[in-house]
Every structure is written in structure tokens, then in C-alpha cells.
């Protein structure tokens, strides 16, 4: 059987950027990328690519199409899913996307995906490490009116049917639905595979298909943001740490315990 998977990925500011290098542009209410720290593919999105490639491992006639929308794409970064083994990539690159809200993101992604004929499965990371909106995948499932299966740690595909183990805090729920469907994943689906040399060579020969708003019948005027960002600030640390210092390290440890008891913390 042939199988078509769409994976949504996002290019984000490296979440390991040290706090000290983190700055905010107050006029634009946006984050200024730190000098010399390139963006990355969002962690859970890499897990989503891995989930798709696992299916491709078991169903060889699988096509994995990666879709990303945004602006200022760094090709070496965003093409990583291709080096991992994905077949195709579609990029919607539009300067307007810099300031768009996630509801518009949902609308655009849904529109791109619905133009990919015969998709069987959409896989998304559970949330992105930048704005952590964590509702675009659910939004896509509602917009396309397809089942939404959350937090998959295992995915099993049968003709016209998907079964997942969905992670809950103390175990899992086995969920089943018909296809096409949308699945969200986190790191529990498994470590993203490293690009192989062959994969990197193949990816270097692939050119992502670039689409503009016109190609997907989206007008900026159709996109009405539902929320407005009014304030973006560095967090205020209100904690003043009291350092316990004894005669030696062992003594400090003891003093710490006594202090916690005295402050009724333990």
C-alpha cells in the first residue's frame, strides 16, 4: 500500500540559547536572535519527522512531505528533515509570517495540506519551544475535520486505520481512528535519527518547493488574529537565594537541612 504522510515543522530560536544572550525588541514585541547562535528545527518537530520515518521503515511505499511556514529560513537548518530521510519539502516563505498569530498559522498550514492530494496522516510536534502555543495541531485537525490523536508514543498503521499508544501521566491510552488523521508527538516517540552521509548528500540535491500566499489562495485580509500580544518582558526573578556556608561542604549540607526545617519548607 502506498502511504502519504505530511509532517509540520517549525524553525525556532535555539532553546539552549543562554538566558544572558536573550533579548527582546520592545518596539516589535519580538525576540532578537542571539548573535552567532543559529536557529534549529523545533525539538518535537524532529520527533514528528522521526515518527514519520519509522512508518516509512515499515511501509516502504511511504512518501514523507515536510511542510514549514515562516520567514528567514536557513536552508542548512530547515532541510534537516530531508537529510534524516524525508522525501519532499514545502516551504511557505512570506515576510508577513513573522508577525502572524498561531490562528493564521493554522489556517495557512491547513490550506497547504489540503492541497496535497491523498494525504493519509499528518504528524505534528506537540508544541514549539518558542511561543509554546500548543494549539496549531488541534486547530489543523478541527479545520480539516479529521481525527486528532494526541501524544503518541507508538503508532501502528493498518489499511485505513491508525492505532496509537497515547501517553498519560501514569501509563497510556490505546486510541484508534480512521484515516486520514492527525497525530501529535513529543520526545516519547523516540530520539530523532541522525542524518546519514547518504541522507545529507540526497538532501543537498533536493530543492524545497516554495509557495507564496497566492499559490495557496490565502489573502492577508482573510487572516484575522484572535489574540493580540500586548507585552513581552524578561521574567523578573523574585527569588533571592540564601547560600548556606559551613566549615566544609559536608557541614554546608547539614546547615541547608537545618535551614529548610527552620523555614518550615521540609
Amino acid at each position: 500500500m502506498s502511504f502519504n504522510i505530511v509532517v509540520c515543522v517549525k524553525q525556532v530560536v535555539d532553546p539552549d540559547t543562554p538566558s544572558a544572550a536573550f533579548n527582546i525588541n520592545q518596539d516589535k514585541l519580538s525576540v532578537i536572535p542571539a548573535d552567532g547562535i543559529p536557529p534549529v528545527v523545533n525539538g518535537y518537530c524532529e520527533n514528528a519527522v522521526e515518527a514519520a520515518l519509522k512508518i516509512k521503515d515499515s511501509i516502504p511505499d511511504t512518501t514523507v512531505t515536510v511542510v514549514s511556514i515562516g520567514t528567514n529560513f536557513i536552508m542548512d537548518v530547515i532541510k534537516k528533515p530531508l537529510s534524516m530521510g524525508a522525501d519532499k519539502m514545502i516551504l511557505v516563505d512570506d515576510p508577513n509570517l513573522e508577525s502572524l498569530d498561531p490562528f493564521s498559522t493554522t489556517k495557512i498550514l491547513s490550506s497547504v495540506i489540503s492541497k496535497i492530494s491523498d494525504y493519509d496522516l499528518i504528524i505534528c510536534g506537540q508544541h514549539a519551544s518558542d511561543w509554546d502555543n500548543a494549539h496549531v495541531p488541534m486547530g489543523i485537525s478541527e479545520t480539516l475535520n479529521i481525527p486528532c490523536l494526541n501524544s503518541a508514543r507508538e503508532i501502528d498503521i493498518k489499511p485505513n486505520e491508525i492505532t496509537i499508544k497515547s501517553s498519560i501521566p501514569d501509563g497510556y491510552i490505546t486510541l484508534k481512528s480512521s484515516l486520514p488523521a492527525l497525530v501529535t508527538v513529543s520526545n516519547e516517540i523516540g530520539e530523532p535519527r541522525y542524518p546519514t552521509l547518504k541522507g545529507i548528500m540526497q538532501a543537498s540535491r533536493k530543492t524545497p518547493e516554495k509557495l507564496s500566499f497566492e499559490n495557496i489562495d490565502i489573502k492577508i485580509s482573510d487572516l484575522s488574529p484572535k489574540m493580540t500580544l500586548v507585552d513581552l518582558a524578561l521574567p523578573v526573578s523574585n527569588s533571592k537565594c540564601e547560600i548556606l556556608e559551613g566549615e566544609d561542604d559536608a557541614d554546608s549540607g547539614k546547615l541547608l537541612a537545618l535551614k529548610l526545617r527552620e523555614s518550615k519548607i521540609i
Partner: protein
Amino acid sequence: MSDILVLAETENNYLHSTAGELIAAGRKLADELGNQVCAVITDDVDESSFKNLIHLGADKVYVISHAELSKGNIDAFVSYLEQICIQINPNVILTSRTYMGRNIGARIAYRLESGVAQDCIDVEIDKNSSRVIATRPVYGGNAVARFTFNQDDPQVIILRVKSFDSNEIDTTRNGSIEKLNISIDNDAIKLKLIETVKEESEGIRLEDAPVIVAGGRGLGGPEPFKQLEELANIFDGAVGASRAVCDAGWMDHAFQIGLTGKQVAPDVYITVGISGASQHMAGCLGSRNIIAINNDADANIFKDASYGVVGDWEKVLPSFTEAVRDLLKS
């Protein structure tokens, strides 16, 4: 009517601890707007739960009933909420950022073409627009954003667990309990729940632990986690780990706390050899008290900790553990 609608989750026939938190947040908004807090709950619970919702601060309780709701089918919850919203037209919907709440909240917002703010740590009313201002950490806690809604119908807020304290139980409070007769389109239930499997884990689960002892790269290997476990056991707590630790294979990813991993908010979060990168802090900043043991005085963790020791954990931890054991015995 424009009331505040709260989705009260249940667990093992009783209210989930987040129900009180949502009502407290709902109360804050309702008291300012002069409207009511209405809690939606499934009927598969002990009868006392309905009154408890009122004692916690709800004005009305709507009881809904369906086999799929009892199984925890998210599709069923979204369809029921959709019908309730058509009937009572709420101004705000509040859910918790739990497995159920974060998915139901996001889905109902899109179903109703509304706005939704995920992972909120505070909510307040904008005096000018009378709409909600939602505060959320973004960029893994490196920044805090405040959003307003551009429309009322309704404003969906998904609240971070433990960001609000439940109100004290007030048994003198009165309110109404109403069983809602709602019919939903069964075709809208696309998910089939086959089974729920509880996995036996040793000790308490991370999300419920009152005390968590978390270890980082500074521990140098998997062995020291036994010592962390020893300390955690004294408190009936749990052990957690940073991403570096899990990536290195010292601990399973199920123990990972952070932006990728679990978000926890225990009373006491004791870190050993954790530098406090924002990626990690995003998973534990809701903790009531953060305690740090680290050999680097400049480590980020000391910015968020309330008490700490700068020193070699191999010497600090055993004496700390010993002293804690003695103190808790007496």
C-alpha cells in the same frame, strides 16, 4: 448570560485537584465581571463532588453524562462543550493544562472559532475592554508574554497546573446543580478508546510528588541517582532529571523535566548538579521552593533558588540527606 465556564476534571470518582484551581481562577474573573462561575462535570463521580464544586466557589454545576465521556474520550468532551456553549454562551472557558484539558481547550476554541491561550499562569480582566488578559511564559521561560483576546465568543484559557491555589472549602456556599440533557452528533466522535493501561511505576508519579529531587549533568553518571532516590524516599517524593542526563542515557526520558519533558510544580524542588538552563527551568518554575546544590556559584540555578549550597555534591548531599532524615524523624 456570559458566564465563566470551567471544565472540572475527575479522577478515580472524585474531583481532580485542578478543579479547585480552575474555579479559583474563574472566581477571580467572575468577581470582577460580576458574572457566575459554572462548572461542567461528568456524572461518573461520587455525588459529593457536585456540592464540593460549589463549596470551592462555583455558582452553578452542570452535570453531563455519556459513556464516551466516562471513558475520557476527548471528542465527546469537545462535542458536549460545543453544545453547552450554544446553550449558555459563556464569556470565558477555563481548562487545565492536563492531558485532557490542553487538548479539549484547544479543540473547542477552534470548533467555536475562538481564541485560546495555552499554559497561562495568570489571568486578569482588562479594565477597558472587559476582556481577559492572559499571562504565559514563552521561549522556555526566557520571556513572559501577556495577550488580550480580540473577541469574546468565548475566550478559552488553558491554565498551567498549580498556577492558582484552590479556595478554602466554604460549606455555607449555595449554588445550583443541574443535569443537562444534551444530544450530540455521534459522528463527531471519531476516536475510539480501546483501553487505558496504568503502568506500575515505583513510587509516586512525578506530577504528584510533593518533593522532587532532580539531578543534572554535574552528577557525572547514572550511579549517583541512587543517592538522589534515597533522599527522595525520605519525603515520599520522586526523582527527576535534566535533559542532558536523559540524552546521555543515565536516566529514562520518563524522568525528564523541562521544556521537553515533564512540567512539575512540587512544594520543594531540590536540584543537584543542575545548572538551571532556561530549558530546564521551564519545567519546574512553578515549584514553591527551589533548593540548589551546585559547585558553580555563578550557575543560573541560584537565580531561581531560595536556598542553596555552593560545593561538591558528593560531600554536600550525604550530610544533607543524613540531616534531613534526622530532622524528619524527630
